[in-house]
């Protein structure tokens, strides 16, 4: 098995040097998500700046995949509009559900492309999605986006 395909350098780098792992001073809302199988947890906080752009913070503990995913997400979406965050999330989720058969677009999901290999391991897909689902929840709670049915 190709361990390097799963744990790409970018992932290991984000795991060891997480970006954006901060506590916000005045979050509009936060969401705490847990993976009931392995106990991984992440809390994502959101706020909006004067232009309505996202300010993101998170805390968490868990495996390299879930924690690197949170770091990639925070870096990528900091300062993005809510609409952008939605389309990036949709692209990321689609890639994770592709079982490894997608051609992810680096222009859209940035370092997120490193998780393409994770999509081949069903048990790890949930790890990668954990922070993204928490962000979605936080955005809804903050009133930044309307609740909608999306793949969990």
């Amino acid at each position, binding site marked *: *098995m190709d361990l390097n395909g799963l*744990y790409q350098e970018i992932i290991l780098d984000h795991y060891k040097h997480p970006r954006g792992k901060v506590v916000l001073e005045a979050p509009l809302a936060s969401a705490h998500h847990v993976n009931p199988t*392995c*106990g*991984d947890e992440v809390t994502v906080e959101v706020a909006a700046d004067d232009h309505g752009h996202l300010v993101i913070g998170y805390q968490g*503990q868990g*495996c*390299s995949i879930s924690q690197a995913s949170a770091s990639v997400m925070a870096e990528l979406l900091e300062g993005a509009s809510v609409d952008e965050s939605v389309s990036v999330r949709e692209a990321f989720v689609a890639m994770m559900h592709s079982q490894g058969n997608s051609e992810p677009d680096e222009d859209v999901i940035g370092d997120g492309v490193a998780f393409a290999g994770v999509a081949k*391991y069903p048990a*790890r897909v949930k790890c990668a999605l954990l922070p993204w689902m928490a962000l979605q929840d936080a955005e809804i709670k903050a009133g930044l986006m309307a609740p909608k049915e999306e793949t969990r």
Partner: protein
Amino acid sequence: MNTFDPSRIKLDFPILQRTVRDGQKLVYLDSAATSQKPNSVIQAERDYYETCNAAVHRGAHQLAEEATDAYESARVAIAGFVSAAPSEIVYTKNSTEALNLVAYAFSNATALHRASGNPPQDPRFILTDEHNIVVSEMEHHANLVPWQELCAKTGAQLRWIPLTDDGRLDLASLDSLIDQNTKAVSIVHQSNLLGTINPVVAVMERAHSVGAIGIVDACQSIPHMPVRIRELGADLVVWSGHKMLGPSGIGFLWGESEILDSIPPFITGGSMIEIVQLDHSTYAKAPKRFEAGTQMVSQAIGMHAAVEYLTALGMDAVEAHEHSLTGYALDQLANVSGVTVIGPTENVARGSAISFTVDGLHPHDVGQVLDSRGVAVRVGHHCAWPTCRRFNVPSTTRLSTYIYNDTSDIDAAISGIVAAQEFFGVI
């Protein structure tokens, strides 16, 4: 008796001949989750479907006779395996159902008592908010959540026997925890996370001294050691078939007939009745009383083959084999720097499930590296989340052995752990 030879035993298990992750040999170290199945078990189920599949206890035709006979012979064999009488063995779908059956004995008796008192319920099962239930801090969720729900429904209080730092029951406060208001004490025999083998006899004795019903979760002990069920000192004992070479979909509740017959029905419907009127019914005695609906017949028959396989090996030999393998694994793990075993590190009163953490690595990542090398272990909280919290770990990596494992399997796990440390650059 033949000497115990895992390499020969392995040949009886078709799945152990397969390769995983690009042609690597499968090293299966996840038997505490579920065991693999020998040919004889797989074949027994197949034979049943090919020769005498029918609804049991219902038909008058030859297939139904043969199916009923096979189903009940399995019960005799399973009872014999734990030195019980066949009428004391209830088939359930898994031990989780069996534990719920027991917890519902209390909630159903309480509800029936409160509603009308008719039929009268056994006072041992009637709860008020003055009563309490005692479990331990090392229970599997299956022996914790049903009691939480029971307490939420009745107002009774849930109490836990705490653990020592080396993963043993801390019995110092046993006599105050289990008091005159205790109605049930339910304890795991061997922890699936820590590996600890508990002194259940002492705990059951204390339970009985205050008139409480004593329950033992033997999921991880009956597959791995000889158990004469009455010697556990409990009123009720549960375990699962799939962890001891049997098919998925079958578990067991053992109980003294006197106790079983005092429990109100749990799942009701066909085959568990005596007389059914439109407005009320009367019920058969145990075990039938608890076996409503069309049963897991092929699974019982597969189980029969499973206990025959284990009996032929000899449970004393199984226990000795696993004990020495556990000792070997504990020694090897002690040699890897950064590894911490969660649970007893001394190979005394401990079974073969070994949980550990590796400094700087998340258990999930350790498991993934092992998997990439063909070594199948379990990661997570192992359905014993409160036990993880007690030891301040979010989860662990666990290796667990069975009759088909040998020291080479342990060696493969050890080199995998070191490889994980190297891959993530923590050594």
